[in-house]
């Protein structure tokens, strides 16, 4: 099944709606009045300096962080403290972490099969079949019976992507997926993400990889100090940034 189907044909046109979202870590105001709408099958790249709140932003979408004020609506379900809503949303939102977070005591195949079996109640054989298909798709079918510790960083991240895809989510969140990788392995992961994007998956990617943003994104969002400073399609964003802060950031990051 391709990503377009995964992103779902039914349901609201806006998969994610964030309205006046605010979050504090104690006294520190980390998300300031965030208004963000993401359409179905849209690819959004979020960039910005460290501490700008971009990771916190996407982590509030699947409730890994709690927002104190404002509304977040994911695929028609509002995200509140209600556990039922949280579980519904988490089933439709997949996440890939900077540190991979694979389960080291399970094989690669078991890592991928775990959630479909226990959350979607998929029968074991079908889950295994699906897992092997996904491993082919991310390019490492021969690693199925190895343990995460035996894989390289790039391979581990690809397993993590396959694990998130196994739940057939409508939205994929990427939290700096290549930041912990050696340069020679970044390409293999970006290739997988590119293929995912071309297949029609709704993606929100926090990254510093501007080449990827230019090529794949429908919209690039720049965050600084907890606020969304600027948002534009990549062509406009990179050639004609409007805000001073955006210009400063671009000059720093595109220099080398």
């Amino acid at each position, binding site marked *: 099944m391709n990503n377009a189907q995964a992103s779902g044909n039914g349901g609201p046109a806006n998969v994610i709606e964030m309205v006046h979202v605010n979050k504090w870590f104690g006294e520190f105001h980390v998300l300031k009045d965030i208004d963000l709408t993401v359409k179905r099958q849209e690819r959004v790249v979020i960039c910005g300096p460290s501490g700008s709140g971009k990771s916190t932003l996407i982590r509030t979408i699947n409730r890994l962080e709690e927002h104190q004020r404002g509304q977040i609506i994911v695929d028609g379900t509002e995200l509140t403290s209600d556990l039922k809503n949280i*579980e519904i949303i988490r089933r439709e939102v*997949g996440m890939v*972490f900077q*540190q991979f*977070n694979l*389960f080291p005591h399970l094989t690669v195949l078991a890592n991928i099969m775990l959630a479909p079996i226990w959350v979607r109640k998929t029968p074991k054989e079908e889950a295994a079949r699906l897992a092997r298909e996904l491993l082919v798709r991310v390019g490492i079918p021969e690693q199925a019976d*190895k*343990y995460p*510790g035996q894989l390289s960083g790039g391979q581990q991240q690809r397993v993590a992507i396959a694990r998130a895809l196994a739940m057939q989510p409508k939205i994929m969140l990427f939290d700096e997926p290549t930041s912990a990788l050696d340069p020679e392995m970044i390409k293999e992961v970006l290739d997988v993400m590119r293929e995912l994007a071309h297949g029609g998956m709704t993606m929100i990617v926090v990254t510093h990889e501007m080449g990827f943003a230019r090529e794949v994104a429908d919209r690039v969002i720049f965050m600084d100090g907890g606020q969304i400073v600027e948002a534009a399609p990549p062509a406009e964003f990179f050639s004609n940034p409007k805000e001073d802060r955006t210009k400063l950031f671009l000059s720093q990051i595109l220099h080398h």
Partner: protein
Amino acid sequence: MRIETGQSLQPFQFDAPRLARAALRWMRQNLFNSWFNSLLTVLALAIIYEVVSGLASWGLFNAALFHFADGTISFGRDACEGATGACWAFVVSNWYLFFFGTYPYDERWRPLLAFGAIIVLGLVSIHPRARKSWWVRGPFLASPVWVLLMVRGVGVLDMQLVDSANWGGLMLSLILGTIGIVASFPIGILLALGRRSKKMPIIKALCVVYIEVIRGVPLITVLFMSSVVLPLFLPEGFNLDKVLRAQVGIIFFSGAYLAEVVRGGLQAIPNGQEEAAHALGLNYARTMGFIVLPQALRIMIPSLVSGAIGLFKDTSLVGIIGLIDFLAIAQLSTGNPTWIGRNVEAYVFIAAVYWLFCFNMSRYSMRLEGRLKTGHA
């Protein structure tokens, strides 16, 4: 030419040195490589010789085991006539007392059968295939139930009810220790999870109070509480079994101790694991059960087994509340006029038995660690 660290360049032979030469070289390198070390080696050897030869002459060479007369072997008092060393006949002739305490002699087939079955199960499970079979696992897991039933007595097979006041010796220590360890483990896990809970402050507070209070008092106090104070709160005439009272005290105490061991293990698991599990949609129970606890348990094994070993030895405190366990039997058995003065043999014997059990527990833990490590890279 191979150069070994800490040694000056010396010509070596290329063919593998024979064992004797290798041993001598090892001794020269490690035990006698300097004047000071050589002195220490000699001193240590002297001490070891003194201790071992003293023990051996008392326990082995000058000891007496049996009396051979008129074609029969007996283990009575006369076996030790004229022996200057240990009198092991004392241990052998009191074997029933040591193992089963004041359990009625006529009913001895029951505990013998029960514990014999456990030993057989243990031997069978040496073979790895046997360990997987439910014919072995089932009886093993259910063992607390049928062992207790056999020892206490059911209605069938003409089994007379043996009140727990008559259970004693090694059998009692094993029952208290095993059930204590097995039952306190899930309690410890629940307490640790409760103490770590972020969403349920009342549960967390209760767990903290329980753990800190119980851990802060000695096991004797807990045993006194459960043995003397608890019955005061029970309704009139409701007589709680004496062994049960001690068992409950042991379980509560061990549960609090294990809770902290478990909590330590849980803390060692990076947050990212829980986050990844939650992001996949796994709920709390499944996250803990499939992801966090399996990894944490691997880390906790040395501490858990230490706790288990400690608990087994701590069961000897129940002598204070009037239960005749293995240690108490050793103390009482020397009161028998036939065997007066044989305290040393008694204590050496029970020390050896305790050591045997505890050593096997730690070997089991090493095997567990080894087996679980093969699951990782």
